[in-house]
Each structure stands twice: as structure tokens, then as C-alpha cells.
């Protein structure tokens, strides 16, 4: 088993990726953590059986890695099912255009709140957030020390930040436009049109680390009816 989920955690199963201490585990971890950058046909790495033990599953320094591949687009396109993000899930190509071209305006400082600069909807922070979640995907428990979400986020953001802002946003916009042209947005995301998720995330239980007062009801209220 590679990825821990609520159901596997209930069964007491632990991911095979472990903590990346052996060469084999490191090889696997590099692959899982960098799934959004994998590119088929690389000369320096690959998951093809013939390359095994001759090449790594993934190589961070390979020159032909993707900045972001279609897996990012697919993950992004499921946002209609993500708690508290449903409002922003695109329902039409016009929504996609809005998402990839719009900014949250700057917020002025007040006596009790800080100033915030303008930020793109699909900002580097947002992309790095998804990338950190991919890296943390194998581990179910939020307190699992192997998750290292902060480090994964910092590294992802640092790498993304090497790209010049304008070029990065244009790149992401191009990728998402192409993806949503192939798979047009669902006009009613999160309205039951995505059966595959019903037996998956969200259907499972807690990871045993509820908030201070275990206020599940509050979370439901926050997520519902957007």
C-alpha cells in the first residue's frame, strides 16, 4: 500500500513509503513528492520496468521536468468537491477564464488588521499548497512526523518562485484552459455528479485528532450549501 486513507488507517495499514530512510524509500518518496513534475519519456528517470535499478523513478535535477503537468490540472478540476472551496470551482469556461486571470485586490491596513498585497487567484501559494498536499498524501494522520508539510510547502514555493510571476501565471492559465477545453467544467460541481468520491475521501472517519472540542458540526456548516 502506498497511500494511507481513512479506510486503510482504520485497518491499521501503514504506507510502504515509510520515512524515506533507505535508498529504495528515498527513490519512491522522490517520485511521489514530485508527481506534479513527472514527464514521460525522460532520459534520466522513469517508471518503466526496463529502467528499474538503472535509472531512478524520478530525478529532481533532470532538465526536462514539467513545471506542472496534467495531474495538477486534474487535482485542480476536482475543487468543486473540496470543502470550503466549492464557490470557486469553475462551472463554465467563462469561470475558468475568471479564475486564471483574476486577482484578489490588495487589502488596506486598518487599526486592527494588516495590509495585504494583491494576490492572484491561482497564486504560487495556492499551487505550492496543492504540491505540499501531494507530498503529504501517503500519510493519513495529521501528526505523522513523516508528513513534513511545512518543509514540502516551503520547497515547492521556493521552486515555483524561481519562475517570473507573469510567465508563471500565463503558463498555469494555458495549462488549465487546455485541460478544461478537453474536460469542460461541471455546471453543478459537488452536486453528486462525481460518484467516484462518494466511497473515497469525506466518506471516511476521523484520524483520531479532532480539534479541541471535536466540533464536527461546525465543519459541516462551513462546508455546506455553497
Amino acid at each position, binding site marked *: 500500500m502506498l497511500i494511507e486513507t481513512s479506510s486503510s488507517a482504520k485497518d491499521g495499514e501503514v504506507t510502504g513509503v515509510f520515512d524515506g530512510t533507505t535508498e529504495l524509500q528515498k527513490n519512491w518518496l522522490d517520485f511521489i513528492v514530485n508527481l506534479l513534475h513527472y514527464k514521460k519519456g525522460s532520459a534520466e528517470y522513469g517508471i518503466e520496468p526496463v529502467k528499474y535499478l538503472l535509472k531512478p523513478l524520478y530525478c529532481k535535477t533532470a532538465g526536462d521536468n514539467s513545471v506542472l503537468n496534467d495531474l495538477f490540472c486534474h487535482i485542480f478540476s476536482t475543487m468543486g468537491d473540496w470543502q470550503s*472551496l466549492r464557490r470557486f470551482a469553475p462551472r463554465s469556461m467563462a469561470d475558468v477564464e475568471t479564475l486564471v486571470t483574476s486577482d484578489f485586490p490588495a487589502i488596506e491596513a486598518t487599526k486592527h488588521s494588516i495590509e495585504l498585497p494583491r494576490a492572484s487567484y491561482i497564486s504560487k501559494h495556492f499551487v505550492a499548497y496543492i504540491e505540499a498536499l501531494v507530498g503529504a498524501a501517503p500519510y493519513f494522520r495529521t501528526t505523522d512526523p513523516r508528513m513534513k508539510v511545512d518543509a514540502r510547502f516551503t520547497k515547492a514555493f521556493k521552486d515555483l518562485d524561481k519562475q517570473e510571476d507573469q510567465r508563471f501565471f500565463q503558463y498555469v492559465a494555458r495549462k488549465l484552459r487546455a485541460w478544461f477545453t478537453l474536460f469542460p467544467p461541471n455546471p453543478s460541481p459537488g452536486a453528486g455528479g462525481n460518484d467516484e468520491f462518494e466511497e473515497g475521501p469525506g466518506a471516511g472517519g476521523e484520524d483520531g485528532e479532532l480539534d479541541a472540542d471535536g466540533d464536527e458540526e461546525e465543519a459541516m456548516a462551513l462546508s455546506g450549501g455553497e
Partner: protein
Amino acid sequence: MRRIAPATFEIIARSGIRWHTAANKPIIISVLRNYIIDNDIDGLAEHYDSMRDRSDRGEKIMVTKFLRSAQHAARQHREYVAWIIDRLFEPTPNEPQMVRVKEEVFGVAGGAPIIQPTNDAMMDLRNQPKGAQCSHLIESLEYSF
């Protein structure tokens, strides 16, 4: 709470992975205030700042509730991503998006698992001894359930 939930996207876009923690309170407070005023949530647009001047209790309660809910949301986000990654290693011939990802990114046709269970890489991983940390985790999981 439900009416301010859409501000989550902006908070993530501005702060990233720790958007749901108290460490991000200054950003959360700014974004929520702005969101409430811009969208006139519960008719508070005109009164938010004057009420906040008089007492910060309402704002504190709102942020605490928001953070509590946000922790559930963050857990659910990870679980969704984990679910999608897991699907890469499962056959998904009836999921066109997955078929496309597997073909375009990993060069695997027809929605087959990107690494077959019989692949040596997978077999070796399965044969890995469970380290101390892993055994400890299994133990704690056994106690949990």
C-alpha cells in the same frame, strides 16, 4: 460561518499550507474583515469597524470558529489529494480524466495503474522491512482502533 467559508480560497491563495492555523491569524482577520465588508455579510458592512473598535470579542469568536472549521477542511483537502494519487496506482479505465493523466504524464494507456503490482519497484517496496518509526506507528494505530 457558512457565509464566510468562501473566503477560504483567498486565505489559501495568500498564505499557503498553514492557512488553517493560528499562526496565520493576522491574514485571516484581514481577509475575513474585508470579505464581510465587501459582501455585506449579515448587514455588517457599515458596522464592522465600529463594532470592532468597541470590542474585539465578536471578531475573536468568529476567527476561532473559522479556524476550527478550517482544520476539518484542510484534512479533507489532503484526503482528496490522497484519493487521487491512490487512483494512479489503480485501474481507472472509466475515468476519462485519469486515463488522460496516465497517458499524457506517465505514458500508460487505457487507465492502467502507472506502476503494475508486478513491477519490481513495487515488489521491492512491498518487501521493505518496517522501520522503528513505522512499527511505532502501527502500534499506535492498533491502540487507536
